[in-house]
Structures are given as C-alpha cells and as structure tokens.
C-alpha cells in the first residue's frame, strides 16, 4: 500500500472516528496482506501533523490515542456554532435606555419617578455591560445616586452621529405609528433647530431654567 494511501486512511479514520485512535487501532484498519509497519503509521501521523500547520485544526496525542482537534486560534469563531439565540430585551430595559438617552444625566431614582415603577438593578447592569450606558458621576443629594449617561458605543450601535439625531418629542408625536395625540405644553414646539435658531432657543431655555429654579 502506498504511503499516500496509508496517510489518507489514517487521516480519514481519525476524522470519522469521533474518538481518539491509537496506532494499534489504526493498524487494525488494514487487511493483513496490505498492513503497513508501525513505523509507517507513525510517519503518516507525523506528516499529517505537519500538513495541519497554519490551519484551523491540529493533530493532538491524548491519553487514549491521537485525535484531530480545532486549534485554539479559531476556537472562538467555531464556538459560535453553539451560541444560543439571543433573547429579546424587555420593555422595561428599552424604556430605561430611552430615558437615559433623552434625559441624561439621570439617576435610577429619576427613572423610577418617570416610569412609576422600580428599575430592576439587572437592567442597569445589562446596559452598563453592553457599554451603552455608563456612570459619569453622582448627584449631590443624600445617597449620592449614580448619574447615568449614554456612551459613544450607544450612538455607534444605533448608527447616530449625536443624540441630536434622535427624533425630538415633537417628531415622535407626529409619527403616525405613535398614535395617540400627546399633550404638550403651550410653548411652541421647537423642532431641533439649526444654527440660526440657537440664539432664540438659548434665550428661551435660559428663561425657563430661571423660572424653574424656585
């Protein structure tokens, strides 16, 4: 039997076996009249090992014999075959995220005030882990609660250049799909203004802030 054929049988057998094979088991694959010497099997294994160099698999000798296994360099990619389907985020998480985006910097307590329910700490943790949100400081009130804000990753994920790319509440109101006519204050609805509006906007904002300060 040719060297090449011995190598082919050894390679195919190692791949098909689904378990490690030792040299004895490999030898047993051949009929007596064609059976290679042990040295030939070993040579085939050595050649095989060499042929795997620089590739995604490798020949490895373990306790019960030889096996072909996935190389560490591609293990992470290959592992994705078993990745579970991601679950969907809850409504509560999306609301929390939206409030952080629109009202940052904001504390958990403030989110709770608006949502009317407690914010599960897991939600904030999830948002922090996903690095869509980070703690940028503490509010100077009793308990010094964390101030949450969105990150650049958040903008990148949603393909936004800046938070200004998010629709204003006025725009949200106009969305047909958003349905219910929302109630707005009597102030003229200011769409996100361009540079020319800034001056006016500044004035109004400042005035309002002043007004609110008592």
């Amino acid at each position, binding site marked *: 039997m040719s060297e090449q054929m011995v190598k082919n049988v050894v390679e195919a057998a190692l791949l*098909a076996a689904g378990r490690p094979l030792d040299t004895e088991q490999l030898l047993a694959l051949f009929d007596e009249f064609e059976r290679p010497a042990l040295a030939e099997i070993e040579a085939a294994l050595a050649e095989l090992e060499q042929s795997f160099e620089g590739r995604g698999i490798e020949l490895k000798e373990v306790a019960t014999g030889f096996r072909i296994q*996935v190389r560490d360099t591609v293990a*992470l990619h290959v592992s994705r075959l078993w990745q579970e389907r991601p679950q969907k985020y809850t409504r509560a998480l*999306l609301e929390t*995220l939206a*409030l952080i985006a629109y*009202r940052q910097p904001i504390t958990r307590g403030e989110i709770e005030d608006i949502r009317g329910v407690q914010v599960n700490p897991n939600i904030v943790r999830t948002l922090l882990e996903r690095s869509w949100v980070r703690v940028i400081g503490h509010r100077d009130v009793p308990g010094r609660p964390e101030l949450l804000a969105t990150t650049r990753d958040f903008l990148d994920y949603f393909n936004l250049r800046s938070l200004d790319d998010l629709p204003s509440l006025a725009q949200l109101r106009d969305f047909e799909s958003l349905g*219910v006519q929302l109630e707005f204050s009597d102030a003229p609805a200011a769409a996100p203004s361009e540079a020319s509006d800034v001056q006016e906007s500044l004035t109004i*904002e400042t005035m309002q802030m002043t007004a609110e300060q008592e």
Partner: protein
Amino acid sequence: MATDPASASPLAALELPLAAPTRQTEAPFAMVDGEPVNEPPRDLYIPPQALQVFLEAFEGPLDLLLYLIRRQNLNVLDIPIAEITRQYLQYIDLMQELELELAGEYLLMAAMLAEIKSRMLLPRAPSAEGDEELDPRAELVRRLQEYERYKQAAEDIDKLPRLDRDVFVGQAELVEKKITLALPEVTLQEMLLAFKDVIQRAAMFASHHVQRERLSVRQRMSEIIVRLQSGGFMAFETLFVVEEGRMGVTVTFIALLELVREGLLEITQADIFAPLHVRAAVPRVAEVAANDDTIIAAS
C-alpha cells in the same frame, strides 16, 4: 423497469432453493401459448421455516404476482392470466397452511384474478359507441407496473450511499467551547416606541424642558461631568471648544446652565471680574440657589 428482480431482491438468497429447480420444471411457462403447463414445484422440499420466511417476505399481493411473473421471464404487459392465477392461489394456500397471517389484500387479489380470468374467456362485443372494451387485464397491468416502479425506486434508494454505512462525516474535536453570549439586537424604532410609551404613561408632556431641549445639550452635560470627574476646579473657558463654532459654544453654555440648575456643578468666582472656575458639585448640601445666582450674574 424490466430489471430482473432476482438480482437485486433481498430475497435473492432465499430464492435459490425455491426458484432454481422451479425454472427447470416450469420452463414451458415462458412459452405459454397452448403448451400444457407443468405443476408448480409441489414436491420440492423446502424447510418449513425457510418457506415461512420466504413467504413472509412478500410485500403484498402485487409483490407476489410480480415475483410469479418475473420468475418466468414473462412480460408484465402480457400476463397469461389463467396460469398466473393458478400459481397465485397455490401460494395463498401454502400461506394458509403455514398459518401465516394472511392480509386480506391477498384474498381480494385472488378474487380479482378470478374475475379477470372469467372475463377473458367471454367473447367481447364492440360497444354501441364503437369504443372498444378495455382488456380486462389493463387495470391489473397498470397496478403491477405502478407498484414495480416504486419497488425499483426503493431498491435504488437502498443503494444510495448512506450516512454511517457508506458515508462517514469528518469530525474534529472542539476541546473547549468558548461560548460567548449573543447579545440581543435592538432597533432604534423599538427604543423610540418604548420611550413614547413611558412618556405617555408618565404624562410628563407638561414638562416643557423634555419637549424643548436639544439633545446635544444633554450629551454635552454628560461630557462636562466626565471632564470634571477628577474633582478639581477647571477654568470656565477651558470647557469651550472654539473650533465648534457658535453653535457648539452655545450648546456647552446651555449644558453648563442646566448642570448648575440640577446641582451637578459648582461655578465659583473668587472676585468680581476674576476668572470663573467650575467643578463637580461636592458632597455637601449644596446651596443651589446661590450658585445659580452666581451664574446668572455672570452671564
């Protein structure tokens, strides 16, 4: 379709004791026409168990009929119905003698064969419309043909390379699965709808600043807080980036005002006309109003 079933049939091994002597005694069957017909191999000794296995191996009356026809190299399209019927009934008898569980279909077929045989014997008158009456065997021939093609197809499928018999899939061991958690995807619209909902629920549209403010101000507020995280004072001017133009400067300015208003920032001035300094609010009960006074005076 006219492959010899004996060659591919799983019965091949069993057919030998029965069929080999059969071919000798029944040789005249192939000629049929007018020739007297020999008895089927009644005297042939077959071990009862083997016979039972053999008879059980038929997949029904059509299979048995096909066997009888093929065994004598007869054409399915031209069946000597009387002879085949006789042979068929002999096998049925044999099955009954051996107390094989005989499916009702076998008896049904026997009746059908008998009926065809009797119709074949009757002279046929052309019908009034001139349509010729069909050969009584036509339906049987059609069924035999139909069955035989799927019988053949089954044999063909059996010969296909099959996983774990002819085909072995290569597998490499993945020693350590590095499972990373796939993160859920969110669309912007989902988030906006969630926001709309929460705002609606909170009925906070009376709160004008949510409605009015530019979100870049909010963003800038966050940025400023981050810059002041070290805790020290920063010169007021250093928070402005001139390159951002009037627009940027304005946004920064509003952000600073809002931060002060929310008590997140302190702005101090050592003296009138002295430079303004900014730092993050320190943990004490802040005198928010005083700070605000400062900034309003400064602006």
